């Protein structure tokens, strides 16, 4: 049995991966493409909250919302001015992948030029430790878990019980039929991109006090979110959540026993899952 702290760390990491993967799958379900810039939105969210807290003196919970709003807006701009223009029918996949990967490096390099390359810490945001008998949890980690729960419940309610959620689900299932019923799929995809990117930005913002903030923090969560998506099945929201949960524990508890081999074990696990089920655990065999 691994130490409890390790399980908590695994849970915290899964929360971040889940939020990232959820946002990516949400965008995928409408646009049919993956947004490879997602990791950099996470990184930019962390920077927004860092500067909001240290430079502007805005309280931490409020600056998370600000990060969400800023990054969501940025995501909408990216969708409107980049993705929509290169998403040509037939070969959209190649163009959008190329364009979003280019954007990924544009943002990473740009953040390095603007904010500098050194590590920035935000430890003062939520100090304190919750003592629970044999082990302790910092309030920051509790905040991450609570935040993810709130986000997931909110997304569940929005997707299932509101009008826009109905529109999103309809457009994800059958875009042409949805537009026949008066849903503006183009505008909807911008909104969904905004939501997905805001999730990434807020994930980066909430985790910023736990880890360092620097221009390169976006790569690992992106990688893990992508692996979570293929484990869970591309296009499945449940799959993204389960995949994120699996990966969070894989990257925290398995190294305790296996060391660096765990990364290779992770890769082999993904390969085995794909060998048995090429569409992922929760995926449907054919989409669009």
């Amino acid at each position: 049995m691994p130490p409890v702290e390790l399980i908590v760390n695994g849970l915290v990491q899964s929360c971040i991966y889940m939020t990232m993967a959820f946002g990516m799958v949400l965008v995928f379900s409408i646009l049919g493409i993956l947004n490879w810039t997602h990791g950099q939105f996470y990184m930019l969210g962390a920077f927004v909250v860092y500067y909001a807290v240290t430079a502007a003196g805005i309280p931490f919970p409020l600056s998370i919302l600000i990060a969400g709003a800023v990054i969501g807006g940025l995501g909408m701009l990216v969708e409107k001015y980049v993705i929509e223009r290169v998403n040509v029918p037939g070969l959209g996949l190649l163009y959008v992948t190329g364009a979003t990967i280019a954007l990924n490096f544009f943002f990473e390099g740009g953040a390095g030029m603007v904010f500098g390359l050194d590590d920035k810490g935000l430890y003062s945001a939520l100090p304190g430790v919750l003592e629970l008998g044999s082990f302790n949890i910092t309030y920051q980690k509790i905040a991450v878990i609570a935040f993810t729960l709130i986000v997931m419940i909110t997304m569940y309610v929005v997707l299932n019980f509101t009008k826009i959620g109905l529109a999103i689900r309809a457009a994800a299932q059958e875009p042409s039929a949805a537009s026949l019923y008066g849903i503006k799929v183009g505008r909807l995809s911008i909104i969904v991109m905004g939501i997905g990117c805001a999730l990434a930005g807020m994930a980066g913002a909430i985790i910023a006090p736990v880890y360092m903030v620097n221009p390169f923090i976006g790569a690992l969560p992106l990688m893990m979110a992508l692996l979570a998506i293929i484990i869970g099945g591309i296009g499945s929201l449940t799959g993204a959540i389960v995949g994120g949960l699996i990966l969070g524990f894989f990257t925290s508890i398995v190294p305790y026993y296996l060391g660096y081999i765990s990364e290779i074990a992770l890769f082999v696990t993904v390969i085995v899952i794909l060998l048995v089920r090429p569409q992922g655990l929760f995926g449907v065999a054919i989409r669009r």
Partner: protein
Amino acid sequence: MKLGNYKKLLPKIVVGLVIALIFIIPVFTTSLVTLSKFIVIGFWAIAAMGFMLIMRTGQISLGQAAFMGLGGYTSAVLMIKLGWPFWPGFLLAGIVAGVVALAVGVVAVRAGPIAFSIITLALAEIMRILAVEWEPVTNGIKGLVVTPPFPIYLDYYFILILVTITALVFWQIDRGRLGSLFRVIAVNPTLAESEGIPLTKYKVIAFTIAAVFTGFAGSFYAHFLGVMSPYMFGLWQSIQALMMGIVGGISSLVAGPIIGSVILNTLNDLLSRLPIYSIKPTLFGAIVLLVLLFLPKGTGLIDLWRMFWNKVFREKSVTVASPN
């Protein structure tokens, strides 16, 4: 010969002169710096061609660095740890890269184009971790120091011949039956499958061929650099191949990557003199975005040149080559 024919002949003469010039460069200069630049350009041209061959089948590989590094490490380990000479290690490097590509490709291709990108990305990352951690074989982060097998001008001819062979093989593939199969798979997989074309098979073939040539190039590059370190497996390496391919032109398999490699490597050289650290990814990303956004779809700089050429020398209206 009629005078009007010069318009047809001129491009061939220009291309021939350029090729001849490239072949006799070591006669004029044997400076290490100049020739190294050409060698780097040649190496990246092969890497970008490999990337484009995979892209021909409608998939984006984000793990070309895995095969560069695999080729490099294979021949470096054989040379340092087992004392093999250069040539058998070089040949085995391509074979090892091909075998790994075949094994991973069979799984990755079945999972669809998006999962393919993710798995190739993960493959390069796993290779990097292995290279860092498997110290008895790879010397960890310090890397393996190999002796260059040839003097620099022979290195130059070596990479020139390697680029030529790769270009000829890819050109023949593109012209022939395999090329048409790749194109129909990329543009209309449903139609291809209903015509009885096994999609997985041809996608894996493209992936494997690309990996073999990238492995050869990586093996040579490791010997040329003199050191093989896990840096070779970095994501930025794979992305550079992607960027050179896209900037050169998505519609062209051979000339585009070469042009892209020339342009981006020259730019790389200029930028590394600047004291600004992360300007390189910023600028490269911006260039790729601009090419994708503002040039006609399916074209890159090579087609821009073609359009310019046609406008100047032929007054006919020109149709731009459609993607694939």
